[in-house]
């Protein structure tokens, strides 16, 4: 869990001293672990891993995108 500083009020506005990060979801944790293992797997090159990571940045993964990637 990220820590955060007290936010001070200044001249009618707030000074945010540290941006909070939302804790990862279980799914995000699972993918992070999965990707880290795939990086060590010789069957997966850097480009494929980066493409999977890029897919994960948008919403839930889509089966057609993964199929296209693996067939590429």
């Amino acid at each position, binding site marked *: *869990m*990220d820590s*955060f*500083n*007290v*936010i*001070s*009020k200044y001249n009618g*506005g*707030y000074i*945010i001293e540290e*941006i*909070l*990060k*939302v*804790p990862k*979801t*279980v*799914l995000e*944790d*699972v*993918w992070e*672990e*999965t990707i880290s*293992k*795939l990086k*060590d*797997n*010789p*069957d*997966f090159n850097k480009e*494929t891993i980066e493409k*999977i990571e890029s897919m994960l940045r948008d919403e*839930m*993964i*889509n*089966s057609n995108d*993964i*199929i296209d990637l*693996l*067939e590429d």
Partner: protein
Amino acid sequence: MKLLELEIHNFRGIRDLTIAPRGENFLIYGPNGSGKSAVVDALDFLLTGQISRMKGKGTKDITLKKHGPHVDYSVKDAWIKANVKIHGLEEPVEIKRSLDHPNRLICENSIRDLINPVIELASRGQHVLTRREILNYVTADSGTRGKQIQTLLKITDVEKTRNTLVKVKNTLKNNYIGAKSSLNTISAAINSNIGITNYDEEKILDFVNINRNVLDGNPLQDLKSNSIKEGIEAQALSPDITVNIQLLKIDLKKVHEINSDKNKESLSNIDLELRELKAKISSDHRMEDALDHLKLTRLGLDLLGPESSCPLCDTPWETGNLKEHLKHKIEIFKESAQNLDRLNELTDELILEVNHTLASLNEIIKSAEILELEKNVRALKSWTNELDILLSVLEDENYPDPRFSEEMVEVLFAPNNLDVILDNIYSVAIEKSPEPSEEQTAWDNLTRIEENLKNYEISIIDCTKSFESYKKSEIIYNTFLESRDKILNRLYSEIKDRFVELYRELHLDDEMEFKAIIISEGAGVDFKVDFHGRGVNSPNALHSEGHQDSMGICLYLALAERLTQGFIDLIILDDVMMSVDAPHRREICNLLANFFKGRQFFITTHDQTWARQLQSEGVIKARNRIEFSNWTIENGPSVNISGDIWDEIDDDLERNDIPSAAAKLRRGSEEYFSQVCSALHAPVRFNLSGQYELGDLLSGAMAEYRSELKHAKEAANSWGNTDELERLKEIDEFSRNVFTRLNMERWAVNPALHYNQWADFTPQDFKPVVDIFRDLFSIFQCNKCGTLLHLVINGPRPEAVKCNCGEVNWNLKENED
């Protein structure tokens, strides 16, 4: 984040409502249909822009824009506003959301970066527990419990992703099977051309070189499609030659043989053995399971690369050990392996027969098309379609299929008039095409081989690529599963201890040694609990529904605490109490009050006893309890803000409304002393209707109090604890004084006897009565935490009288030495 104030305008069943929880626990009590859940929906909407109750199964026709606003108002007039306190920010902030722009949270721009993480976390919904979810969990059978718990824990996205990966894996597997099937068909066509059973490069090369020799070509060393006709001249076809009679004759002969007795017997034997073996396996579940394990283990062995980790789950192994381990496992499945191998052999034999037939059939169809024998072409194409279906059933391991009778399979679905069709094609062919020269036949042979080899080479590449893709999808899938189990087990391990702690606290009296197992298992969760030290079982195996209910609450609280810590302190319990019995409800109150310091519970209930308990046990302050009733479309619920009973009575006295003050005092006293009697286990004269007179409740409560105080003094004396004894004597003196005063004035609150006299009372007359009751109430509760004194029973005798914070703690156990 804590909720300080909430304002709801024209939302669901509420017209206008403002409540002020002030960052403290808050309770809405009211009957079903009074609008409680609309407040929860409003909070849900404010934080997430959605109403979770309006999503999911059975909500197909319900939309936020149409059904979110109050029925008489449009989305433009419907909004929710709140003052909230956010971690790290000293000042409260105002947030607002309107139904006409549900995705836009209105707040000061300067705090947006700070509020966004809270909103994002809220969108995961882990701060709301509804009765529906608990109900789903409780009523789930063992097969679906894992899924229900995942829903309760709001981690269904993991399962959705797993399903997506399964889809990927299956699609790529099917692609691979398809590619393999094409390869088999093409190699069968080559084999058929040459007259060999299995694809053999050397034999094919020999065949090519024999034909090249006829055409004066040099022999080739390597078999490649683009060099088959290298260095030989194309044969100039005679204009009257349409089909090669020599090659057609060979193909026709092969297809004619399908109807031969020898062929029928051979196919029939294969088919019969295959059917019997399949029936044997299907009738034995253990055999089926063993075959699945064996296939997986063999796949693992096939995929095993030079690296020293499992190709399916990436578990590290010492070099060589995994191979040995897999071989050993395969050895264990010896009997299954024999069956599986025989099954594969028979299936392959049948596939080979079909492919050989298709290879010849396709060549015959080409000739029939050249000869313009449309009717024959249609009949033969229809047959090839049926053979293709049979092929896919065999390759997908779905054979036997009820569509295919033994009689059909023994002739490979050949049409009844096959001989007539084939004879007709041959007679027309010899009529139109003269006998070809040896050179022409050699050239045609090479043309066929060249074409088939080209397809074979493409197919090999397709097959290799599709296998690679399939293999990668298997690896991603298995790695994802392994990661899921690791992450979930870590999460479950973290919450398990808290879950057990909370559950034990609830069931101190009967399950002090309670244990639980929560581990990730397959797609779900293996959730088992100990039953009085007699072994672990599913929650619904031996525990009562009430115990299962409280397990659901404890599991949820433990998880919500873990997942929202530091961001959302607000936990919403929407009508979650169902079958938990009264004593355990009191313990749940204790749990909420003492185990979740710093959290804000927003609770709704239709259960009056639970509402009272939440207040008497110190979870909810009187000012933070509101009551909904008499809901109407036009006005929404009527809201009774309970406040402090003494403030309300003082208000009545100020207005000179003695009857109202007396009624409130009586009703409040009845509620209060029914809780006191329950907490002290006080004997009350039994009444079958369950309706007790205030007099009965007061007598019981006071008698029990005096009795336990007497025991406490005796105990203190036996231990030589003079300080405690003196303190108890002071309490005794004060309580005696109050009891005496009460006996003198108590008639004043009895409406049955003295209704008419109220009219003659002045506030000055009634105020001493109020003061006595105020003192009386104070005797039965802790002046520090405000919770009721309760009897602690452990074993046959009570051992203490305590409050929840420990400020009051009368020892009742005497020194027996």
